[in-house]
């Protein structure tokens, strides 16, 4: 291929006009190829969105948007089936918020430790360990959660069964740690050293400097880390399918709950008819939900940057 391109000028010696023409054509072809691969990704997004909308709407139309979104009972295979996904929606919101509540402080502190406090050799051990967390498949988190965490919660809180929202929150919190730690650490590392030097010169202690100067200076990066964490937590299915109990209860900390994601994953394999269509509707709701959250957080971030 490359040989051919190089040999073009010798073939058309003397006729520069044609040579230019050929090269231009080649340029255009290459443009076309790059454009094609460029829009493949966009195409998939559009295709998936369109598919979700087309397959998700019929069930919503049949059930009624109000009954679907605000119904509190999900009995997809009962004689009188009911398709209310409010328990799933609330569980997804509570679960993600809970995971943030646990994961963000831990992740932020870890990032602070790695970036500012830890002696270099120690950081060299902790950092790869945190990165390794990101490489563990979610089904492994679920398995360990099911075998270790669920029985532990059961005995610690003296419950009849440990599969509950709390177990899911703890698993999610651990799963979002690596993204929160690495993105916040990068942001903290990027804080100009002069800021910290100035703070120290004014008599602030090191810890005061880190929390009062470095952290605010890195705030947009830390916010990005949180957004990333939310995105991962709300879309996770496999790990929480194994620890959350999966009953369509209204969420409380110790009740067996179903997330939007696990509602789909749980029933998909044997579903049929309206039940299957309703699962697609849940997928549509989840999709819109994640888009809304992302758009909202991006707006928030932008405003934070401007202000």
């Amino acid at each position, binding site marked *: 291929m490359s040989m051919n391109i190089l040999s073009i000028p010798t073939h058309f010696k003397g006729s520069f006009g044609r040579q230019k023409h050929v090269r231009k054509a080649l340029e255009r072809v290459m443009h076309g190829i790059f454009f094609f691969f460029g829009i493949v990704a966009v195409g998939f997004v559009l295709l998936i969105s369109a598919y979700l909308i087309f397959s998700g709407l019929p069930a919503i139309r049949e059930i009624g948007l109000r009954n679907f979104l605000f119904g509190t009972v999900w009995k997809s295979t009962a004689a009188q089936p009911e398709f209310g996904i409010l328990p799933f929606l609330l569980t997804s919101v509570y679960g993600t918020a809970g995971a943030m509540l646990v994961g963000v402080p831990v992740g932020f502190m870890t990032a602070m430790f790695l970036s500012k406090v830890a002696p270099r050799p120690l950081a060299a051990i902790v950092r790869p360990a945190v990165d390794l967390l990101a490489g563990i498949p979610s089904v492994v988190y679920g398995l360990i959660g099911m075998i270790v965490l669920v029985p532990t919660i059961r005995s610690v809180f003296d419950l009849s*069964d440990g599969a509950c929202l709390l177990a899911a929150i703890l698993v999610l919190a651990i799963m979002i740690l690596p993204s929160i730690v690495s993105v916040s650490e990068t942001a903290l590392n990027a804080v100009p050293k002069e800021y910290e030097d100035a703070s120290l010169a004014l008599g602030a202690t090191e810890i005061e400097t880190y929390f009062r100067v470095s952290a605010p200076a890195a705030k947009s990066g830390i916010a990005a880390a949180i957004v990333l964490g939310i995105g991962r937590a709300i879309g996770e299915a496999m790990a929480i399918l194994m620890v959350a109990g*999966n009953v369509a209860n209204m969420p409380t900390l110790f009740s067996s709950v179903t997330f939007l994601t696990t509602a789909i994953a749980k029933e998909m394999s044997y579903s049929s008819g309206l039940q299957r269509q309703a699962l697609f509707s849940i997928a549509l709701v989840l999709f819109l939900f994640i888009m809304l959250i992302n758009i909202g957080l991006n707006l928030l971030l932008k405003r934070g940057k401007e202000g």
Partner: protein
Amino acid sequence: MMKKKSLALLCSLMLCAGLLAGCGNNAASTSSASPSGAALSGTVSTNGSTSMEKVIGALNETFMYNHSGVTVTYDPTGSGTGITAVAEGRADIGLASRDLKDDEKATLTQTVLAKDGIAIIVNTQNPVSDLSLEQITELFTGVISNWSQVGGADAQVVLIGREAGSGTRDGFESITETKDSCQYKQELNSTGGVIEAVKNNPDAIGYASLASVNDSVKTLTVGGVTPTAGTVKDGTYKIQRDFILATRTGETLSDAAQAYFDFITSADATDIITAAGAVPVA
């Protein structure tokens, strides 16, 4: 340059061919049965129970291997839909994981293909080892909520079940008459998940297909009967259901469909049915 390239291409093609040839050889050598009756051709359509998916899938595979001219289709739509489909002539054979009702028997004939036993499992630490069918119903509907009420420790009963739409759940709930009224604490989407959850909670009770149960949990006797292939087959173990084939009464099947019907109800199919987790009756 060009030569080298074509040589490389040729080599890789040969390697690919070798791979494919390997596949062919393996398939041929592992299967002992030689294709017979290749003269048959046509399509056999089956439609019905999702619970029978494993059994029918395995049977179809073997049948289609032996009769390369026949295509057997299987629509996992549910027992009710399958029976309707065969009654309306949209399928050759209807599959149902329940017996035919009297009005359905007016036009259809049922043949029991296999039986499916559902084991009731508890944690190995649970002192309870026998429950009556009524007690099981009361446990799963929440009437009995403490193990001490059935001779166990003073602890709350934790019900572990399958997800809505699962054939095992459907079977269990229809036999124990607890449909839509089970007070589950956990709904899991696999038999392995149910067994694992029961293993990890000393107060748990769950149900699982008889063929999948292992020693990590305790299998209860129901009304004094231990679930085994034998007690399921002779009907003394109560928590079981029939896998039936429904055909139109007084109508002959096509040659291909008849051959398929004969094969899956023959003694040759029993090993396949057992391997797929059900109890053959032939």
